[in-house]
Structures are given as C-alpha cells and as structure tokens.
C-alpha cells in the first residue's frame, strides 16, 4: 500500500518535471557564474563591476533574456580576492554547468580561473582586468572587456608628444603588472614617437613614502618635461604631495587607476594632471544617461566608472548570443571573437582582429579646479599599440 503510494508520488513528480521542462522550452534557463572578489583587495573594483553587471542582466531578463531566448540566473561566489579561492569557485561553477564565467579585475586570479573554464570550453571574461596578456595566457575562451594597459599607454604617449614633451621620467612598481608594465608600454611608444626617457623610479605598493624618491627626481638636471606613472591610491596622492613639496613642477600623466574622487580632492596641486579613463559621463551621452539612471534606481551616483563597464558586459554578451543563436561554448566563443563595433555606454567594442582584449575608445581627462575636464576620446591606433 505505502509502496504503491510512493511509486505514484514519484511518477507524478517525474511527470511534473518533464512537463515543466517542456513548458520552459520557449525561454531556456541558463546560469552564468561569477567568481569575483566581493571582499578583500579586489572589492574596490569587483563590487562596483558586479553592481553594474546585475543591473544590466535584470534589464536583459526583463525583455526576454540573452538573444531573446536565454533567461539568465546568476551564480555569484565571493572569492575573498584570493587566487586559490577563485580557482575553487571557478571549479564549482564549471561543475554546476554555467554557460559563461566572469573572473575578477586582476590578472592572476583571472588566468588561474580561466585555465579551468578553458578546458571545459566555457567562454570567460575578466571584469576589468587590464593586463593585455591575460587572454593569451589562458587561451581562446578567455576575453577581456576593459581598455587594456598597452592601449592606455599608447594614448598617453601620443598625448605627451602632441603636447611637445621631449623627455619623460617614469615611475613604476614591480609589485603588479599594471604598475610595472603600463609605464613601460608608455616608454616604448613615447620613444618610438621620438621622445626620450630621462629616468626611471621604483616604489613599493601601499607604502606611500615617496620622500626619498622625489628627492632624487628633484636632483635631476635637466628636469624631465613630464612624469608618467600608473600609481594609484594610496600611492599616487602621496607621490604627488611629496613631489610638489620637493619643488618639482613637471606635469604628470597618469592612468585610469586615479579616476577617483581622491584625486580631485587633492586641491590645487592636482591641477593639470592628465589621465586615462574608460569613459567620462557628459550630459546627454549614453554614459551620462546611465549615471542618471543608476542614481535613480539605487539612490546614489556611481562611485566609479567600473559600474558602467560592468553594466556593458551583459550587453556585449547579448550581442554575441544573438549572433551565435546559441550559448554553446565553441559557437559563443566564435561569436564573441568576431564582434565588431558593438555599441556600449562608453563608445563601441570590437574583438575582431584582436587577441580578445577589446579595441575600444579611451578617454583622456585633465583635472582642473577639483573637477575633471575631458581632453579627448580616441581609440588607440593598433599599429602603435605595443605587443603585450
């Protein structure tokens, strides 16, 4: 008697499951995995990226899913900004059958997690990793989304030449690929365009004591025309204060790491700094409208442009899914790799003809009177961009 009833229940349950599966065939359910650092050292980058990403994914789901067919569920895992934990999270997500994987804003965990999704043929994208070697270090399923270091450096070098600077001093830190390679890429392009490197300095990340270093710069004769660095908080403000305190007046070129309210809060000494950023919100521009929308939805304006670049990723993915007509790994990879001029908030994104680090516009801004003023927005000339 009980056995019969149990069998009956089981059969009903199975039938219901089957029916549910048929019912959902119109809009297929897929899962996207995110193994990112929501706490720890990468949280300043991964948290805002995730906020933008979720907002875009909700919008896409509301209008029928990726490519109009795939309703997306997000499986979000916090890696505590630890590379080992990122690998474990990636492993779990791949085993759970995600169709797309997002990795943190940093090269090391992205490359480590990418090794796993590459083997499982799952297209993977780093949130805002800028190191141009990330993609080739993993393989053909690994994609970048943010303006790469070598592209930023190219634009800065072109700007330096256009300003008539002949000699540059570069300050770099061997502690991260970003702070080491970006100034080196800059030096490469700057020299190719006719500039000379007057000297190189080194610092340790986070130590914020630059007195010894700036005393050396102040002793240089002749003084360099411009100083270039990829230092960011807390190093950059400390460097700037020490540099101006030591009486050095050379203009400064920086990278997107200083696109932060701290830089504008530095007062008069920040005037004249020119740095790169993924985008600058002007009134009426798509990015400006997004900032307004984000503020309307969340009650606070985005603290950083990473919110916008995170928001762009689902739309890039949507374009690829629409082109491929499926979310199967190999087809989706090919569709992503062949995307051209996909309109996004900050311009357009192209993967075709790249090593899967996108070709996209980068904006130069200058700091004047505690505010940013856009200088130019341009896509770096691929012929000038140094090989990663």
């Amino acid at each position: 008697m009980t056995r019969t009833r149990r069998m009956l229940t089981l059969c009903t349950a199975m039938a219901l499951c089957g029916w549910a599966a048929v019912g959902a065939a119109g809009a297929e359910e897929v899962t996207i995995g995110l193994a990112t650092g929501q706490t720890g050292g990468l949280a300043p980058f991964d948290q805002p990226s995730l906020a933008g990403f979720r907002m875009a994914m909700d919008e896409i789901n509301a209008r029928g899913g990726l490519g109009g067919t795939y309703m997306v569920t997000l499986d979000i895992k916090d890696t505590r900004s630890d590379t080992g934990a990122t690998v474990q999270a990636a492993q779990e997500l791949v085993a759970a059958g995600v169709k797309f994987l997002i990795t943190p804003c940093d090269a090391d965990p992205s490359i480590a997690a990418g090794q796993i999704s590459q083997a499982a043929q799952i297209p993977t994208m780093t949130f805002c990793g800028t190191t141009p070697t990330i993609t080739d270090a993993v393989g053909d399923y690994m994609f970048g989304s943010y303006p790469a270091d070598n592209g930023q450096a190219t634009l800065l070098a072109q700007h330096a030449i256009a300003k008539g600077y002949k000699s540059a001093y570069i300050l770099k830190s061997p502690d991260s690929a970003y702070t080491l390679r970006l100034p080196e890429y800059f030096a490469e392009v700057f020299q190719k365009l006719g500039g000379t490197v007057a000297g190189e300095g080194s610092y340790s990340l986070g130590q914020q004591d630059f007195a010894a270093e700036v005393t050396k710069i102040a002793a240089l004769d002749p003084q360099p025309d411009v100083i270039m660095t990829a230092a960011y908080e807390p190093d950059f403000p400390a460097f700037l204060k020490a540099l101006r305190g030591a009486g050095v007046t050379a203009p400064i070129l920086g990278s997107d790491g200083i696109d932060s309210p701290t830089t504008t809060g530095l007062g008069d000494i920040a005037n004249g700094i020119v740095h790169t950023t993924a985008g600058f919100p002007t009134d009426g521009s798509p990015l400006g409208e997004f900032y307004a929308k984000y503020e309307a939805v969340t009650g606070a304006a985005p603290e950083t442009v990473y919110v916008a670049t995170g928001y762009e990723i689902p739309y890039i993915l949507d374009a690829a899914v629409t082109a491929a007509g499926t979310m199967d790994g190999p087809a989706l990879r090919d569709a992503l790799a062949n995307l051209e001029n996909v309109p996004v908030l900050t311009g357009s994104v192209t993967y075709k003809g790249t090593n899967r680090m996108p070709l996209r516009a980068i904006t130069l801004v200058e700091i004047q009177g505690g505010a940013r003023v856009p200088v130019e927005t341009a896509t770096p000339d691929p012929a000038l961009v140094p090989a990663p």
Partner: protein
Amino acid sequence: MDFFLQQLLNAVSLGGIYALLALGLAVVFSIVALINFAHGELMTVAGYVLFVCILYAVPLPIAVVAAIAAAAVAAAATERLAFRPMRRADPTSLMLTSFAVSAILKVLFQNGISARPKPVPLPPDLSGTLTFGPVRLGTVPLASILVTCLSLFALTLFLKRTVMGKAMRAAAEDFQVLRLMGIRANRVIAAAFALSGMLAGISAALWVAQRGSVDPLMGFVPVLKAFVASVIGGLGSLSGAVAGGFALGIAEVLFQAYLPDAALPFRDAFVLGFVVLLLLWRPDGLIPARTGRRS
C-alpha cells in the same frame, strides 16, 4: 651633502611615524603579550571619522581630536568584546583573535561604508613646504616629526608620573605581583588598549594626511611596519619600539636613496635583509624588554 641632509630628514620623518605605530603595538604587548594585528583597523576607524568630520566641515583640530578619541574607544571596545574573553588563552590564540577582529572590521567597512576609497581632502596650507637652508620639508613630514616628539614626551610623562602609568609599567614587568598589590587588572588592561588606540589615532591622522584618502584595507601596511619595527626594537619594550621604528624608517629611506637603479625594485628585500642581520646581532631586539618575554 645637501642630498644626504635632505634624505636624512626624510628618514627621520618616516621613522617618526613608524615609531608611533610600533609604540601602539608595544604598549599592549608589554602587558597582555598580544600582538594586536587589528591595530591597523583602529587607524582605519580614525580615518573614517576624519573623513566624516571633513565632509561636514568640522574644523580640522576638532576633527583630529574626534578621530583620536574614536580610535581609543574602538580599541577599548575590541578589548572588552574580543580580547577580554580570551584573557587566559595562550599568545598564539590571542594573536589569531586579533586577526579575526581585523578581518571582521575590514569586511564591515567594505560592506557597510564602501569598498572604494573615500577622499579626505585636507586644507591646502597643509600641503605647503618650508625651506631650511639647503633642505625642504613638507608641512606633513614636519608635523610628523613634531607630533612624534610631542607624543613620546607626553607618553613618558604619563608612564612615569601618573598612578595608571606606573601601574602599566609594573604590569609589564610582573602582572601577577601587580594584582597582588591590589591594582585592578581590567582597568590597567583597558587603559593600555585605550592608550594604544590613541597612538593609532595620532598615526592615522599623519598617515591619512599623506595619502589623502581612507579605505577599508588601509591598516594593513602600517601594522606590518609596526610589527617589524617592534620586533627589531625588542617586543614589549617601549623604548625599543621607538628605536625600531626609527631604524626601519632610516633603512627604508637610505636604501631607496642610495641603491643603484637596477637594484631598486628589490629595495624591500634589502630592508628585510638588514632586519635579519640586525636580529642575528641582537636576537632580542635593540632594547629588549626587561621581562625578556617573547612571543
């Protein structure tokens, strides 16, 4: 010569900050044998208070006092909530507790305030420079030299002249005997934590003035420096902490100034190598604590 003088001044200024940081660790270690790795988060608390005060245009001196007071209160609170229940545990458990406090506070800051750095814009006259003959000194480095001297003087007065100060020195030498004398242990320990918090607040003000922002993970580097400095100086010894702080600061600046360019990326390796040599020469530190207690 001018270059050397300037670098020497730079070294003294950095050493002063490290000395203050190391003192904060040493005050607590000398009494409860705890290396408080949450000391850096006390600095972060002070930094956020400074941020809020400046946001609401509170005059700077009041903001700084509020920040120092907040760090002292936070230190006393962590003692009451986390360290007092662990009072009889061995030093390793205590140290792990401090790691836990530090990790919890960091995540609270990240999820409760913001993962992004918050700007702490200081008045422009604080980024000025004073010229003394051939050398120049920024207002903030000058302030750190003065504040360090002043704090050391006040701390010495407190430890030598007040009952609580004397009790703390006695506790550092022999805690059990102190209790037999009828001094209440809880009060001495709470006072030590509050004092350590005040030192964290003072160094936070100098640290934040240099970097212009406060973020949830800000405390990591300073507490590391403080730890190295107090080990060089002799764990648990207050004068040792000061000596260790200056030794570390001077080593860092001089290596940065005089290493050849090719070796510059390895500056930290040279500094830590110097620390190893120092410890080989004096395994208990430059000025060992009188009880000889070590972790």
